[in-house]
C-alpha cells in the first residue's frame, strides 16, 4: 500500500503535470525549430503568435457558444481551433509579406532577422492586447476531470489523491497527433521533402527547381498551426493571459536549443527535458520517502533546490548542453 501511495504521489505531482507541460513546450519548440531550420532565424515573436492564436480561438469559442454549439464533454475550443489556425496563418503570412520578405530579398544576416522578429513581437504583443485585453480569461468548458482527487480516493482507498484533468489528457493526445502529422508531412509528402531539402542546402534546392516562396509560405502556415495549437492547449490547461505567453518564450527557446535548433525530434525531447527538470529537481521528496521507508520520517523536506530556482535549473541544463554538445542533444544546426 505504501509503495502504491508513493507512486501515486509521484504521478500526481511530478509525472502528470510535467508531461502535460512538456507537451505544451514541445509543440511551441517545434514551431521555433521549424522556423530556425528553414527560414534560418530565431523567431522571438513565437510566444506572441501563440497568444494571438489563442485569442482567436477564444473569440471563435465565444461565437460558437453563443450559437449554442458545444462539444459535450470536450472543450469547445477544439472545434474553434481550425478557424483560429486559419486566422493566425493569415496574420503571419501578411507579416511575412510586409516585413520579412524584404529582409530575405536583401539577404540580411540572421541576426538582423532576429532583431526584426523582436520588433514583430512587440507589434503582435500590442495587437493581441488590443483585440482581447490584458485580463485573465478562462475559456475551458466541458468536463474538467477524467480522474478527480476525491473520486480516486474513494475508489481505491489510498491516502494519496490522483487527478487527471481532461485538459491534460487532451494536451497529450493532441500533441501526439500533431507530431505524427508533422513527421508524416515532412517525411512523406512532396512539399515536406522540398522543405527539408531547402533546409539542408538552400542553393542546391533552388537549383533543383524548388519554389522558395512556396516553401516559405508553407513553413509559416505550419508554424502558425503549431503555435495556435500549443497556445490553445496551454490556455485550456491553465488560463489565458497575454503576458504569460510572453514569459513562455524563455522555456520554449531553452527546449528548442537543448534539443538542437532545427531538429524536430530534438524540440520534442527538449520540451520534456525542460519540463521534467523544472518540476523534478525542485520537488520535495519528503512524502515519497516517508511512504517508501516507513521507519524513517525525515524532518527536512528532502528538496534539492527551492522552487525559486526552477528557472535556474533549465538554464543550467542549457549551458551544460551548449558547452559539451553545442549542436544540442539531437544534432541541430550550430547556434
Amino acid at each position, binding site marked *: 500500500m505504501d509503495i502504491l501511495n508513493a507512486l501515486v504521489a509521484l504521478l500526481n505531482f511530478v509525472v502528470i503535470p510535467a508531461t502535460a507541460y512538456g507537451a505544451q513546450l514541445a509543440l511551441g519548440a517545434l514551431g521555433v525549430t521549424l522556423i530556425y531550420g528553414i527560414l534560418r532565424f530565431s523567431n522571438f515573436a513565437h510566444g506572441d503568435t501563440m497568444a494571438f492564436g489563442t485569442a482567436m480561438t477564444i473569440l471563435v469559442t465565444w461565437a460558437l457558444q453563443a450559437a449554442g454549439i458545444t462539444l459535450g464533454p470536450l472543450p469547445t475550443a477544439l472545434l474553434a481551433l481550425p478557424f483560429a489556425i486559419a486566422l493566425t496563418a493569415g496574420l503571419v503570412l501578411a507579416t511575412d509579406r510586409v516585413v520579412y520578405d524584404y529582409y530575405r530579398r536583401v539577404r540580411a544576416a540572421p541576426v538582423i532577422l532576429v532583431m526584426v522578429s523582436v520588433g514583430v513581437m512587440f507589434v503582435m504583443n500590442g495587437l493581441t492586447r488590443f483585440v482581447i485585453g490584458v485580463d485573465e480569461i478562462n475559456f475551458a468548458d466541458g468536463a474538467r476531470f477524467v480522474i478527480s482527487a476525491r473520486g480516486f480516493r474513494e475508489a481505491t482507498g489510498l491516502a494519496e489523491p490522483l487527478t487527471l484533468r481532461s485538459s491534460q489528457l487532451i494536451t497529450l493526445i493532441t500533441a501526439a497527433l500533431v507530431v505524427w502529422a508533422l513527421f508524416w508531412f515532412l517525411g512523406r509528402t512532396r512539399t515536406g521533402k522540398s522543405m527539408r531539402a531547402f533546409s539542408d542546402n538552400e542553393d542546391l534546392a533552388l537549383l533543383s527547381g524548388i519554389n522558395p516562396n512556396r516553401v516559405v509560405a508553407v513553413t509559416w502556415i505550419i508554424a502558425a498551426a503549431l503555435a495556435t495549437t500549443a497556445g490553445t492547449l496551454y490556455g485550456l490547461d491553465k488560463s489565458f493571459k497575454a503576458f504569460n505567453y510572453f514569459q513562455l518564450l524563455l522555456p520554449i527557446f531553452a527546449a528548442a536549443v537543448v534539443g538542437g535548433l532545427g531538429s524536430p525530434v530534438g524540440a520534442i525531447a527538449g520540451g520534456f527535458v525542460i519540463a521534467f527538470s523544472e518540476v523534478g529537481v525542485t520537488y520535495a*521528496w519528503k512524502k515519497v520517502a516517508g511512504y517508501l521507508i516507513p521507519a524513517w520520517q525525515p524532518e527536512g523536506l528532502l528538496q534539492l533546490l527551492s*522552487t525559486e530556482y526552477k528557472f535556474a535549473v533549465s538554464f543550467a541544463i542549457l549551458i551544460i548542453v551548449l558547452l559539451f554538445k553545442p549542436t544540442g542533444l539531437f544534432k541541430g544546426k550550430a547556434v
Partner: protein
Amino acid sequence: MKKLLLATAATALVAGAAQAEDVKLGVLLGFTGPLESMSPSMAAGAEMAMKEVTDSGKFMGGSAVVPVRGDTTCIDAAAATATAERLITADGVKGIVGGMCSGETTASLQNVAMPNGIVMISPSATSPALSTIEDNGLFFRTSPSDARQGVVMTEIIMEHGIKEVAVTYTNNDYGKGLADSFQAAFEAAGGKVTINAAHDDGKADYAAEVGALASAGGQALVIAGYVDQGGSGILRGALDSGAFETFVFPDGMVGGALETNFGAELTGSFGQIPSSEGEGKDKFLELATAAGFDGTGVYSAEAYDAAALIMLAMASAGSTDAAAYKEKIMDVANAPGEPILPGELGKALELIAAGTDVDYVGATSVELIGSGESAGTFREIEFKDGKIETVRYR
C-alpha cells in the same frame, strides 16, 4: 523665447500672489503601475478631506488647502523619488499623503522627505520593515503593518483548530514581509509551518511549487499572493491536484475574482482583510457618495484619514512647518479628547482653536500605536456556498 519666459514668470508671480494663503499638500500615489486601479478612489478620499477643511474656512485663518498629485508608479523607486522631490522643492507642499507601495515609500521617505523634513502619512504601505525604519518622527501610516496581519491570521487559523500549515508567498516586499511575520507569530503560538516557499508572479507553470507544497503537507495552505497574479495559479493547481482543501487568504487574495473563478470549490476556506466598520465608516461612505466617488475602494478611507490627520496636526501646532506639527499627529489621532468623525473636520478645527483636545476617529477608527501606525481592524471572511461572507471584525 525671452517674451515667453517673461510671460511665464509674470503668470507665476500673479498666481503666487493670488494664492499666498494656500497650503499645499502632496498626494503621492501610484497613479500608473500595478495598483493603478486603486489609486483614483484613494486620491479622491484624500482630496475630499482637503476640500472639507477648505470649505470650513477655519483652517489657519481661512487658508485653502490645495492638493498636488504625484505619480509613484508603485514599483519604480527612482520615479517615486523624483516625483517626491518635485512635490517638495518645486510645488512646495507642506506634507504628503503617500506613498502607496512599501518599497517606493521607503525610498522617497529616506531620500527626499527626511532630508527636507517633510511629514509623510501613507494610507497603504504595510511592510513590517516600515515600523522600525529610522524616520526622524516624520513617517506615519493609517494602515496596519503586516506584522499585525500575521498575528490576526494566526488567531483566526488557531480558532479553526488548525495547527499545521504550508505557506507560499509572492516573491516581493509585501509577500515576503507578510509570510515571515505570519510564520513568526504562528510558531510563537505553537503552530507549525511545514514550508515557507516563494512563487513568482506571471510564470508559465506552477506545477513545481504545488508539488513542493503538497509534499510538505499541512492542514491548510496560506497563500500570501495576489488574486490576479500567481496566487490564483497556485490555488488552481492545489485544488485540482487535491493537495489541499482548506485555504487561508490574506488581503492580496481577497477579491471578487475568487468568487467568479473558484466559487463553491473554496467552501470552508477563510481569510482576513484590513477593513473597518462603524459610525465613522458609514459617514465616510455617505460623504464619498455625495462627492461622487466609490468610498468602498480599498484604502480610500485610510487616505481620507491621512489627509485629515496632517491638517488637524497643523491646526493644533498653529504652523504648517513639519518640524512643529509632526509632534502633534499622535496627539490629535489618539485619546483623550473629543471624538471626531468624517465630516466633522470643521468642528474639530473650532475645538482646536478653542484649546480643546480632539481624538480623531475618522473613517477607519484611527488609533496610532508604536512609531505611528494604525493598530488596524480586520474583517474576517469565510467562503459559504461560493460567496465571501463576513464573519466578524477583529
